[in-house]
Every structure is written in C-alpha cells, then in structure tokens.
C-alpha cells in the first residue's frame, strides 16, 4: 500500500469521505478556539453539560419532523440557548454559582431529552442523535457547519478583547465597561452553536471532543491566547483528517475515531509538550544566572 493509497485515495475516490473531511475541518476551525476559552475560564466541563442540554431540543425536532437535520438543529439551538440563558440569569441574580446553576438546568434538560426520545424513537434513532453521522453530511449540513464556523470566527474577532479581559480580570471590565454580562452571553451562544454544529457530524456526546481535546493539548505547546487557539485549530484539523483515515481503513465509526485521535494527541502533549509537559519538566536543565 503506497502513501497515496493510505492518505489520499480515500478522499480522492469517495465523495462521502471528502464531504466528511470538509465538514469536520471547518467545524474544527470554529470549535477549537471556543474550547481554548472554555478551558481558560475553567469551564471545560461546561461544554459537556451544554451538549447534554441540547438533547431535548434535538429530540423534539426529531419528534416533529423525524430524522430531519434542520428540525433537530433548530430544536438543539433553542434548548441550548434556553439553558445558557436560564443558567446565566440564576447565577447572576441569586446565590447559586454558574456551575451549580448549569448542572441543575442541564440535568433537567437531559432527562427531558431522554424521555422524549424514548417516547417515540427506536434505539437506532437514538444512536444517530447521540453519535452523529459524519459520513452522511448533506449539502445543507455542510453549509450549516460552515455558516456557524464563519459566525464564530467573526464574533470571536469582535469580542476578543472583552472576552480576554472578562477571563483575566472580570472586576476591571465591570468598572471600565458594562459589557461583561453581554460578552459572557455572546460566548455561551457561540458554545451552543458550535456544539449543535458538532452534533451534526459527531453526535451530541462526542461534539464536545473536537472542542475540548485540542484545547487541552494546546496548553502544552503555546504560551499566549492567540498561540493556544492556533495550536488547537491545528490539532483539531489533524485529528479530523487522521481520524477519518483510521475509520476508513479500519472500518471503525468515524466520530469516535476522530475524537480518539485527538485524545492520542492530547496524551502525547501531556507527556512531551515543551510547555510544562511531563518529560520536558523532568529533563535536567541547568538554571540561568538571572
């Protein structure tokens, strides 16, 4: 088997592989920087919780229109935004903190979702919702994912300074500008949008993977926010390509394959990453004079 057979042929020969590749790569560009900010704000698990929160919306869409991407997407976005909004509202107006408030709402949402799916779906359908269908992305889905990635990048470019400031010194932002809450909401909306885009390709459970694993890995390769985002995007794109190839050659489901490759890169980063990786930390290095 030549390198061409191994790396290029699957994409050159099969349209569905090309579509899958484009879909996940475009998804990576938007989702990875969002993951970086989630991790910097110690909200790494928020993505996971929000992914669960999306479920009932997708399920209601499914209930109304069957396995229709548009209906499930609209439902997912609505449910995700509702949970994000309620969480923010309770966290900012009562004694509950953001994490507790989110936990409460996402659990309610998740239970509702499971209830709705089991009420009228077969287990095959449930598997679709949970694990996605990256190899069956149609034009509409591709355009949708690309649209969300575009919105994400434009929005990030717009709120970048406020977002960094809200992460590093929220008190200061509160004094110099009233935009703290607005910035946070814009960010949460981006999280929801990217998760919904992700569940088209990877399913509700795994869409968080392409967001968080590259972000986690990037901490071992870069020192500032811009660098982290660049590394995270690169890791996500590489994982997408490698994951699809692995899934093609080994006849494995593509979603888990992509996320597992990202997981592998994460573990290598923890071990060998030059910024605080375990091995570089332990290498004898004489300290400098000043």
């Amino acid at each position, binding site marked *: 088997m030549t390198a061409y057979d191994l790396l290029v042929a699957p994409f050159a020969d099969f349209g569905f592989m090309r579509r899958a590749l484009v879909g996940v790569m475009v998804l990576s560009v938007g989702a990875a920087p969002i993951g970086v900010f989630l991790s*910097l704000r110690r909200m790494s698990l928020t993505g996971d919780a929000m992914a669960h929160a999306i479920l009932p919306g997708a399920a209601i869409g499914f209930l109304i229109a069957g396995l229709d991407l548009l209906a499930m997407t609209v439902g997912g976005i609505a449910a995700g935004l509702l949970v994000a909004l309620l969480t923010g509202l309770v966290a900012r107006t009562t004694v509950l903190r953001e994490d507790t408030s989110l936990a409460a709402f996402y659990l309610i949402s998740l239970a509702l979702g499971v209830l709705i799916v089991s009420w009228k779906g077969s287990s095959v359908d449930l598997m679709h919702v949970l694990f996605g269908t990256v190899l069956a992305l149609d034009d509409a889905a591709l355009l949708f994912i690309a649209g969300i990635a575009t919105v994400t990048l434009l929005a990030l470019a*717009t*709120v970048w*300074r*406020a977002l*960094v*400031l809200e*992460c*590093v*010194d*929220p*008190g*200061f932002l*509160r*004094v*110099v*500008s*009233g935009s703290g809450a607005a910035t946070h909401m814009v960010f949460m909306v981006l999280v929801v949008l990217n998760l919904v885009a992700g569940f088209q390709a990877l399913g509700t459970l795994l869409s968080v993977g392409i967001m968080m694993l590259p972000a986690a890995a990037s901490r071992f390769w*870069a*020192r*500032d*926010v811009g660098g*982290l985002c660049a590394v995270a995007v690169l890791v996500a794109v590489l994982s997408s390509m490698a994951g699809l190839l692995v899934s093609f050659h080994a006849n494995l489901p593509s979603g888990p394959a992509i996320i597992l490759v990202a997981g592998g890169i994460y573990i290598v980063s923890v071990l060998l990453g030059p910024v605080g990786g375990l091995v570089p930390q332990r290498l004898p290095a004489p300290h400098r004079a000043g």
Partner: protein
Amino acid sequence: MLNRLGAAPGAVHAAAVRFRNATVGYDRHPAVHHVDGDIEPGSLVAVIGPNGAGKSTLLKAVAGLIQPIDGEVRVEGCPRRRIAYLPQQSEIDRSFPIPVFDFVAMGLWRTVGLFGAFRRPSDVRVAEALGAVGLAGFERRTLDTLSGGQMQRVLFARLMLQDSPLILLDEPFTALDDSTAEALLDLVLRWQAEGRTVLTVLHDLGQVRAAFPTVMLIARRVVAFGPTDTVLTPAALRTARQMTEAWDDDAPVCRHDGPDHRHAAPGHGHAAHRHEAAP
C-alpha cells in the same frame, strides 16, 4: 515623560466626591452609615479605620460597584466608567496566559476600546508606564511568573494608563517591601500633583502622617474627617478602635439626625448614586 502619560497639571479635569448622609452596606446592615463630607477636586485623602470599618465598601460605592442603601454618593467631574479603581482583592486570574504588556494595555480601554487600532503611540505609552513602575523589560513575561510586588506594580502601570481624574486605591501598599511601597507612593503623590483626586485606604499611620494631607477616619461611621493632624488625635483613634464589628440581626432601625440633613433611616429610601460628567 510622565506628562505624556498623564497629561500636564491642569489638563486633568478635577473630580470631586460628595457624600450626603450616605449609608452603604449589605443586606440592609450598614458597613458604614451616615457618611457626610466632600472630597474636593485634586485632594489626596487617606481613608483609615479598623478592619470591618467599612473602608472598602465605601470605596466600592464611590466606584459605583454598589448602590448606597440610603443617602447619596456623588462623583462629579468623572464619568463612572472613567474611574480608576484598584480593589483590595482583585479577581485577577493570574494563571491566564497573558503577557504583562497586554495586561497593562487594558488600561487604554477607554481610548482603544473593543476595536481601536493599537498603534505605535499606544505601544510607547504602555512601555513608558512599565518603565515608570520599574518593570521595563517585563513586557513579554506572563502574569504567573510575577512576584506579588511586581504584580502590584503592573496594576499601578495599568492605573496610570487609565489616565483618570479620580483614582481609588484599596490598601495598595499591603504586603509590599519598603522600597516598592515608596516607589508606588511616589506615583500616587505625582498623580495628585497632576491634579487628580486620589482616595486611598491605608493602615500605616506613619505613612499617612508623612504623605497624606487629608484623612477620613471611619469606624462604621465617620469618626473624624479633615486635615491629617486634626484627625489623628489619640482620642479619635481610641474611639475608632472601640467600634463594634458584629452585625446585630435584631438591631433596631437606625434613627439618625444628621447635622444638616432630614430625618433619615436605613432601608430603601431615596437612595441615589449619581455620576456627573465634567461639563
């Protein structure tokens, strides 16, 4: 050099703070109540008092972060968003990977904002501010590599860039060595010389006597307010020390007839917090 950072004396609009029977606190319990007094434009005031006296809470009210329960805290000559405020316990996430340069540059928020371009003059101003606090060469260091004293100097550099007519400092010199504290105090004095109004919470009475012309001594109420030597009397300090710190959950509603004020009681009365911009 500093003139380019902070503008020449006189160019800074003078800001005043006026307390009118102001009560600030939490959950209807006053941290400090019935505060009256005027902090005139360009003055340098030390706010002192025992722990729990309400110093930080008073400063937060001036910064507009909390509303007075009763009475009025009015800031004149400085819109709320322009006030430079250094909290005692900041919410800064020092593990966030951001270089010192970028962090200090946040002080330019008012002029640069969300989208403003960051051109050479801005770079120069940030570099000058870092130079003024003795941190030239620290531009690329990240926050997590700084010592406590270095971090405090970084915060002062940012305050400097905010170029505010009203500067509020909550225990700015705590946990600093003598030379760092002296260097930062020099900056504070220079701010006043430039015409800015500076309100500083302090504990070091020696420092207050040496450098601050005006003192507000509080102990959940104003014990004394005025020129330093008239305020820091043994009697006043003894009074302040005898303050009760505890909240009494069953405390009766406070009845107080201020010297020149209408009868007022804490609760949700005609609380107001107004900031008026300079004309």
